[in-house]
């Protein structure tokens, strides 16, 4: 048993049932998952139980993971791409406490279920893997329409004109589309989704993937999915191409590389070191470690 006894968690995990939620709640979640897979990109409402971590910390993703996990599963939790981020560590500790039998892992390739916040792993996921996203805002239309009832009608009619108007206004004001993350993405030619706050860098990974992507919004009470081998196209104009984060060094014109593993094709975290100099490092910790292991083995 894991020794962390944070506020609100019983030291005796056995006082709660397997995977915390009562069985009726898990059944309801699984039904919503099936519906979400059957209607790609459609936001399926569900009741959303309160979790022992706060709303906004991944309660939607957590409910999905708890409904999916069985004792023979292997689970990985990442936040900002890293396994050691406080929130990932906290959620992992909760699974450790409430899901006896489930194996924890840090390795992307070893996991059957991966719960993530803000990143898609660099290593392409397989057909037998599920990626669960934590979602703060499930509806891409919220930036143009605050009323939920109106947004539902707009989705039903695939009426996304106001999103394109927003992109057009960006071009007029900045000569750039300024949406940095949560980039609106059209699924299977109909619904546009908010792919959660992943960077634009990760959006192409949603398209025609081998794995199942599940999105859970706890506070807003919606579940949606991008099933395997499904079109996922970021919306843009014919004459304006979708651009991912460049990481180009303005001085040299070259792309920055990871200071640990030297990767020049991964999403990088940029931060000031103790001397104030800018340094760059892979955001996906497992990817960086795997590359280092390979480099060592090759030597």
């Amino acid at each position, binding site marked *: 048993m894991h020794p*962390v*006894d*944070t*506020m*609100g968690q019983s030291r005796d995990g056995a006082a*709660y049932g397997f995977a*915390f*939620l*009562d069985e009726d*709640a898990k059944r309801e979640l699984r039904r919503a998952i099936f519906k979400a897979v059957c209607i790609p990109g459609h936001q399926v*409402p*569900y*009741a959303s139980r*309160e979790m*022992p971590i*706060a*709303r*906004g*910390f991944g309660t939607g993703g957590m409910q999905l993971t708890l409904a999916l*996990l069985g004792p023979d599963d292997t689970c990985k939790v990442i*936040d*900002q*791409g890293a*396994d*050691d*981020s*406080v*929130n*990932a*560590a906290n959620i*992992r*500790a909760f*699974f*450790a406490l409430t899901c*006896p039998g*489930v*194996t*924890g*892992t840090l390795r992307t390739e070893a996991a059957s279920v991966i719960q993530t916040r*803000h*990143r898609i792993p660099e290593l392409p996921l397989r057909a037998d893997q599920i990626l669960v996203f934590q979602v*703060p805002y499930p509806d891409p239309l919220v930036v143009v329409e605050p*009323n*939920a*009832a109106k947004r539902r009608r707009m989705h039903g009619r695939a009426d996304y004109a106001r999103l394109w108007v927003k992109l057009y206004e960006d071009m007029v004001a*900045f000569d*750039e589309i300024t949406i*940095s*993350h949560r980039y609106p993405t059209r699924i299977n030619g109909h619904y546009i989704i908010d792919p959660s*706050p*992943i*960077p634009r860098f990760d959006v192409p990974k949603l398209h025609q993937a081998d794995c199942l992507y599940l999105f859970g919004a706890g*506070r807003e*009470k*919606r579940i949606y999915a991008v099933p395997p081998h499904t079109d996922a196209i970021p919306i843009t104009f014919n004459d304006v191409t979708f651009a991912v984060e*460049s990481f180009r060094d*303005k001085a040299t014109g070259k792309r920055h590389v990871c200071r640990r593993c030297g990767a020049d094709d991964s*999403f*990088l*975290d940029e931060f000031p070191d103790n001397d104030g100099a800018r340094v760059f490092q892979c955001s996906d910790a497992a990817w960086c470690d795997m590359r280092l292991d390979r480099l060592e083995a090759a030597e």
Partner: protein
Amino acid sequence: MAYVAIRGGADAIEGSARLMDALRAMGASAPLELDQIERQMPLLHSRVLSEGSLYHPRLASLALKQSLGDSLEAAFFLRAYRSTKPRLGETAPHDTRTMRVVRRVSAAFKDIPGGQMLGATPDYLHRLFRFDLMDEDAGRFDQIARDWFGNRPKAEAPLTFPKVLDTLRAEGLLAPLAQSDESPFDITREPLIFPVPRSAQLATMARGETGGLLALAYSNMRGYGDVHPTVGELRVGYVPVMVPHPVTGKPMEAGEVLVTECEIVAMFEKTDSGAPVFTLGYGACFGHNEVKAIAMAVLDRAISVAREKGRVANPSEDPEFVLLHVDGIESMGFCTHYKMPHYVTFQSDMDRLRAARTKAGEAADAPR
């Protein structure tokens, strides 16, 4: 799940949890007993019971103790615990005329059938410090209790009271109660998809956060709205909970819950049948929370006005605006989450800003 050893975050969290615990234990004060919280801070305790939406007085005390007195966090403990429990059944509607009343007032009439009963309230107390409370002992508590019970005649007041609003209904000034066979909307098992029935509206507010409800209701009272309420009746007391017997199906008493209930009367409206009548707003919640019950009743009325007129003129009249923003567990959680790492999205933000600045620089450099 088997624990995976990992550097960084997990150690920090464990240290933080231990420090929280140490802060509680440091110094010379004796450990808080759960009874002390329930008996000596009943109004704080009530707030947690009501916002936690689980009537478990002992766990509410534990929640307050464990959360170091934070009412939002304490209510959150009860909510999270609720998620582990299945729904066992549904009761018939409860008539609050059966309430064992400890306090009831009406602002609408000088005297009411059964009489006004002020009960325990700080409403008319001077908020002047009683410095002698800084140093009390158990003997003093005994004395206070003896003084109170010592000169009490037995059964001086009835236990239950008729409703003030019945008088108005009898005269036809208030529409008769509509009987509804509709089963109530269970907000714990169904998400709110608008438009929602009034039962969903009432249930959401009944477990809403007191401060959130108050702020929105106050905006209506001040002028962003026109409910202009009169408190027809506000009552506090214990309502017997009748649960269908698992075998016979007959209702049987399973216990009682402390409830605050408020019925406000608002200005009259035209009806289809012609004669105008007063309109009603309803508020009720677990525990003794008068501000919450009144605020809820005002908002219930405000939302209903807009529904009847088919037009929303103020935020407090918009069911989406009110119902999606009054839950303390959700709003507190989302507010707190901004403290979590956001460096991936911030990286994206910087990328866009740099790109836009480059374009702006190019435009400025271009010959005019």
